[in-house]
């Protein structure tokens, strides 16, 4: 068989029709896949949007992300210290608790013979608390 014979055969093959059932099968399958894909596409978009809304909501309400008030502002809005008539501070025994001790409350080592009243004053510095003890 020569090359021309082969090319003639190729030309005849070009004119051969494609089986109708193959055409129908391909068309039906393509339409089916596209139709099945559409709801998933919508569902994935809705899910992504919902996830964004949830994340934004969580960020809004999370206390760690909330802007804490500045110390000066806290001082302005802090309740005024209770008005107590006391002697000047240098004459009164004061116990200023450092930040570390603040967390662990130590009970008094000696039994108290008389009732003691204490006044706790919180300063703008959260690590510093003024405790007034009157005997």
């Amino acid at each position: 068989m020569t090359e021309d014979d082969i090319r003639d055969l190729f030309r005849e093959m070009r004119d051969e029709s494609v089986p109708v059932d193959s055409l129908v099968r391909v068309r039906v399958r393509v339409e089916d896949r596209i139709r099945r894909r559409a709801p998933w596409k919508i569902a994935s978009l809705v899910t992504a949007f919902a996830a964004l809304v949830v994340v934004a909501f969580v960020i809004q309400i999370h206390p760690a992300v909330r802007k804490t008030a500045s110390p000066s502002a806290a001082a302005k809005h802090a309740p005024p210290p209770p008005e107590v008539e006391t002697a000047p501070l240098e004459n009164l025994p004061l116990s200023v608790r450092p930040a570390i001790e603040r967390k662990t409350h130590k009970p008094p080592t000696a039994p108290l013979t008389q009732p003691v009243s204490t006044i706790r004053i919180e300063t703008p510095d959260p690590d510093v608390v003024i405790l007034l003890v009157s005997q």
Partner: protein
Amino acid sequence: MQATALIFEIGGTEEDAFGRVVNQREAQLLRVAYRVLGNWADAEDVAQEAFLRLHRHGLDFASESALAAWLYRVVVNLCVDRGRKARPTDELKDLRAEKPSAETELLRDEQKRQLMMALTALPPKERAAIVLREIEGLATAEVAAILRTSEVTVRTQISRAMGKLREMLREEKS
């Protein structure tokens, strides 16, 4: 007519345009896939996948020929990716007419069957080049664009393939 113009026909939607492209190109793609793979079942899978990829890609092409080249390229790549020799199994009996025909037609059918068997024995890329140029009738430049190679390479592949086909058909005859 530009493929994108299909979308802007009066009352047309992208889905309508996609449907029209499927109708226009389906037979072509099936035929190419069949000639490269050698059986209709695989050809249907490849054609289906090609249209699904087109749907994902959209119809944004510069021209009708760009769309055609894109589709051919996808089909050829899918055929090559199948990674196995074409299976010219029972489908080749389709070449024989169902009702008895004249002796010359029988002979012609037999020659086509032998040519098809020989074609499926070629390496995938040579097979694709021959199918696109000799059966689909595309120009060498178009084939080169589809296969993403040069025209020289396409001519070399076809020349080599034709030589192999001649050799195989000669052996078959003897």
